[in-house]
């Protein structure tokens, strides 16, 4: 009995090296910056999900008896020109930012993944023409392309996601294609073809899983860009619309007019954007370093 207990303890001790906590600690030690980024992202995710429970004020309702209140014990970050609590709006704004960031970069890079792999798989003239088209799409800066899409589709959260997603597609497709070209030459793709599998199956089951590394690298690096882009569009009045709380929107509508009399109105939302994008960039760098050490120098 005693012996088996000792043995069981030994096993427990041995296993504990691989517990989740140990893995997290290992990551923190090896990639402190990436871990810090991941921590902030996780934090934003939690406050975005629990926004309804951790805030006491209404994020959209105007209250004209508490306009321009400086930061104090009740309103930690003060109130804006409509009397809305800024901290509350920043917490709800995290929801908008993460929603746009995740959805736009996920759909954009997944479409890019499919297009890139397909282009590399078929090769030849199809690939050549496809690459030229991608080149042309990339001759529009991100925000210009997004603005052009907004000018057709109009504004609003769903349309902003679409507008941000579009310019990501060619950027991801190009990177994924480069890896997929190498995968295509590996014998198992030939083997799959000899077995008579159709194109769809070879692309989805044999090629796509092997280009996950560049795909994930692009996906994470897009998230910060998407949040920044959403903030820029909303700031210009061409993104998320009032009264939806969004960080960029909080800087719009005379934030610079109030800059002197109520500096807390522009300071805190801008800090939220900077910290959010910073965290996603750190996370993205860590993901890139882990998955593809060759790209480290860029």
């Amino acid at each position: 009995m005693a012996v088996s207990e000792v043995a069981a303890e030994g096993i427990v001790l041995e296993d504990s090296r691989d517990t989740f906590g140990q893995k997290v600690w290992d990551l923190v030690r090896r990639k402190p910056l990436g871990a810090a980024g991941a921590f902030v992202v996780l934090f934003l995710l939690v406050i975005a999900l629990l926004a309804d429970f951790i805030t006491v004020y209404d994020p959209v309702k105007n209250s004209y008896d508490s306009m321009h209140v400086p930061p104090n014990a009740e309103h930690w970050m003060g109130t804006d020109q409509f009397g809305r609590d800024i901290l509350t709006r920043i917490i709800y704004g995290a929801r908008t930012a993460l929603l746009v960031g995740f959805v736009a970069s996920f759909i954009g890079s997944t479409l890019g993944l499919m297009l890139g792999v397909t282009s590399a798989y078929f090769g030849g003239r199809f690939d050549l023409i496809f690459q030229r088209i991608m080149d042309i799409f990339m001759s529009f800066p991100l925000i210009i392309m997004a603005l052009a899409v907004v000018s057709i589709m109009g504004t609003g959260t769903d349309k902003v996601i679409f507008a941000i997603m579009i310019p990501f597609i060619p950027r991801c497709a190009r990177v994924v294609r480069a890896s997929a070209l190498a995968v295509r030459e590996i014998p198992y793709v030939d083997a799959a073809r000899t077995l008579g599998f159709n194109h769809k199956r070879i692309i989805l089951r044999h090629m796509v899983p092997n280009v996950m590394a560049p795909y994930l690298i692009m996906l994470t690096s897009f998230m910060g860009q998407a949040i920044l882009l959403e903030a820029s569009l909303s700031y210009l009045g061409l993104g998320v619309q009032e009264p939806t709380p969004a960080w960029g929107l909080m800087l719009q509508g005379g934030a610079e007019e109030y800059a002197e009399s109520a500096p807390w109105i522009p300071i805190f939302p801008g800090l939220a954007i900077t910290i959010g994008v910073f965290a996603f960039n750190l996370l993205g760098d860590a993901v890139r370093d882990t998955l593809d050490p060759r790209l480290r120098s860029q």
Partner: protein
Amino acid sequence: MSKYIFKRILLMIPTLVGAAVIVFFLLRAIPGDVCVLKMAGTGMYADPEAIRICQQELGIDKPLILGIDTQFVDFVWGFATFNLGESMWTGKSISGEIGLRFQLSLQVAIMATLTATVFAIPLGTISAIKQDTWIDYIVRTFSISGIAMPSFWLGIMIILGLLIITNKITGEPWMPPIEYTPFWVDPWANMSQLVWPAVATGFRYSAVATRMTRSALLEVLREDYVRTARAKGLLEKLIINRHALKNSLLPVTTVIGLEFAFLMGGLVVTEQVFNLNGLGKLFVESVLASDYTMTQSLVMLVAVVFILTNFVIDILYAWLDPRIRYS
């Protein structure tokens, strides 16, 4: 070299035509007819005769692409001859409107580039030489934060800082002038207006270029010829200046050039913050007002600037590095 330039020019043509096709279809992708939209807004009655006249004026009653007298030919020809037609709402000439604002935006762009280069190359170099010391960490924090910080927020913070500081010193808050004065008319007024937007736009730019300088230099410092130079006892200063820096500046040139092409995107927001009447502001206003003809011309202009800048970078690259010319 001239053969190389010729080849590059030939390669540029399909990209330009492709960009024109995309921008061309942009205007046609809006739900409904521009003229109906203009006359009736959403859901009101419009006189069919007025719509027909409007369509004729804008030339959108012609066939789209197939044939000689088509909308697409009109569009490309208009661009080639700098006659871009009229704004849908104000009826003013688009070329005229762009010409009015081009000078201001170009000046901010050039100033931002200069600011960025002046900071980026020394900072990146120090950061690479002192790799993994506190100087390196400070420079890297600066460059990562530059990429994360939205330029419009930096602009607002600059204005806030200016207001507070001038208020403390002179007792009166000071704002940069809003009216644009050309440099040769009044250099002081011109600079005091445009220096801050240039800094706000250039910060991100210099962050990107600093990162690039650092990583390019680190790579070159690991090359064999640097080790040889060190082995023969050359001064570290000479090694950096003559051997390493020269070779690492190639990718930096590319990044600086590419970012210059992307500056238009940065200007879109900075001009809004500083209330500058430049191309970026015109762009935002035209998108806000659904002025499709204006938006279309501006998007095309950005693409042309981008493609031309790329061309210049390629030529510069080949000039700096003979290996590219002959491959």
